[in-house]
């Protein structure tokens, strides 16, 4: 007998989901009300005045457009490079035999455990001497370098479930390693590449520490966001606007690529189970 699904889980899960949505509602509410109305809490209903002053002020007083483009450039470069090269490194570590393979992998994994803070001062000196301060490369290079460890491990882990027979079939069909990688492995590694891309984009987009230290004129959105709150003026309404602007692109990207997160990573090459 088929029993009807009970209703209570829907209510319980709905309430939990609401908890996650409340801050978003709060930020939107703060961005469209005068600051005076929200100092005692955005949830107060009386009085409620709708205004886009905060949006206007942020747009006029801060170089939002420029900061947005800077963030986009930094995050894009810092994402595209690991997405392209991490699978190549993962393929090499997983399928090729070459001298010092294990040691090289260990060195790479070592970068995994190095926190950002450790490299800041040496990097600052290096960038100052090489004149890279306030260029995109001053943040893109450490972003890519620090991401490589987990990106390679993530794709290598994905490849451990990749059907070996596909590689064998490609070799028998006439592919060398380069062709096997580009025409057989890459098209079937999109799930792993998308995962690397989404995570890396989010992290680099939201990153504050390195851009704040290395970028001046080319400040990114989170850096600009941090300048909105003054020492004496909290500017809650403007900070809310900046938060919304900063969140929009990662949200859109996540919505667009989320199917790759849930997609079955298994390659359907014909085998059962």
């Amino acid at each position: 007998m088929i029993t009807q699904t009970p209703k209570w889980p829907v209510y319980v899960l709905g309430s939990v989901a609401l908890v996650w949505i409340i801050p978003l509602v709060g930020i939107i509410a703060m961005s469209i009300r005068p600051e005076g109305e929200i100092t005692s809490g955005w949830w107060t209903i009386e009085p409620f005045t709708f205004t886009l002053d905060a949006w206007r002020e942020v747009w006029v007083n801060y170089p939002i457009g420029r900061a947005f483009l800077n963030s986009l450039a930094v995050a894009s470069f810092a994402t595209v490079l690991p997405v392209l090269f991490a699978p190549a490194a993962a393929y090499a570590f997983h399928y090729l035999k070459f001298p010092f393979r294990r040691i090289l992998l260990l060195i790479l994994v070592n970068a995994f455990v190095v926190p950002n803070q450790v490299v800041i001062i040496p990097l600052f000196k290096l960038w100052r001497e090489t004149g890279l301060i306030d260029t995109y490369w001053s943040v893109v290079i450490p972003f890519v370098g620090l991401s490589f460890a987990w990106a390679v491990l993530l794709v290598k882990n994905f490849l451990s479930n990749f059907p070996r027979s596909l590689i064998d079939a490609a070799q028998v069909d006439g592919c060398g390693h380069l062709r096997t990688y580009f025409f057989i492995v890459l098209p079937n590694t999109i799930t792993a590449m998308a995962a690397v891309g989404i995570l890396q984009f989010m992290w680099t987009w939201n990153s504050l520490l390195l851009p704040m230290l290395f970028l001046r004129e080319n400040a990114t959105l989170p850096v600009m966001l941090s300048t909105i709150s003054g020492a004496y003026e909290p500017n809650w309404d403007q900070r809310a606007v900046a938060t919304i602007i900063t969140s929009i692109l990662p949200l859109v990207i996540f919505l667009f690529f989320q199917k790759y997160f849930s997609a079955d990573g298994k390659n359907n090459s014909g085998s059962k189970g």
Partner: protein
Amino acid sequence: MASIQITEATKSYGNTAVLHGIDLNIQDGEFIVLVGPSGCGKSTLLRMIAGLEEVTSGSISINERIINDLPPRDRDIAMVFQSYALYPHMSVEENISYAMTLRKSPKEKIASAVNGVSSILGLNGLLERRPKALSGGQRQRVAMGRAIVRDPQAFLFDEPLSNLDARLREQMRSEIRKLHRKLNATSIYVTHDQIEAMTMADRIVAMHDGYIQQVGTPLEIYDKPANVFVASFIGSPAMNFIKGTASASGDGYHLQTDQGHQIILPESSGLKDRMDVILGVRPEHLMIVEEGPASLPATVDLIEPMGLSTLVHVRVGQDSLKIFTLDRPDIAEGTQVHVSYIKEKLHMFDARTEMRLESPV
């Protein structure tokens, strides 16, 4: 087409040797089946021929040219994998034509080759589909098509039917055999299914623990297994074995079984008095009889009716024996019966070496 020579080939992973001194000559156009249990090294040997595994020592030649160091793409061989290994992001047509595309064959030639192959294998309506939209049998055909279209020197099959259901497997078995007859291409087929080996092979290579145990035609191997392993592996239902000691009696020998019974042995130059012997007898060479001088008392353990035939499991002392009969014996489980054997069809093995003792059969 090609002949393949394997000379003293070995394969080791570190200190673990998985193939020991393999010698095998495969004639042009021959259909060879490598058969053996899991882990016997048959797939490794096939992959070495394909170039997917390095040869540790010894040599593999195609048409007398040593190919040890040639990459797979330069060996001009085609392989059908157990998992089919169809490229998931390509259509059936692209899968079939990929090797030709890589070799930069003219488009018209590729199109006509793909058409030819898809007509032979009945894939005409499926060329635009992706592998995930195909059934198991269709995928298997595409994998075959991908191999055939290249017109290679040799075909290698790595358990290509093991993912199919029994009915489809039987159908594909005969189709592969017919295809081989049509193309007459040298083929090496790996399986652990001894029925596939028996029905498809020109010659069977039985392998165990990295050694070739016996090479011969299916009936040679069935009728004269070289040792206890081959005798037990080939044949379904499997051969029965009875241990005992040979005793000289009159002109010949009889076997004094460990269970205290006497079985008259056929002539063999290898037999000696008091020699420990393993006697092998195929289930179809045993029968249930009335009590007589050469019969053994037995208890019926289990009766397995299979429609066409019946398999009767009996116990003679502690020895468990299977009897294959086309009759439908009117006996119940637990009944006391007598079992007899065809003396000329008995197989004898030296219990120490487990090697066959020749008899004039």
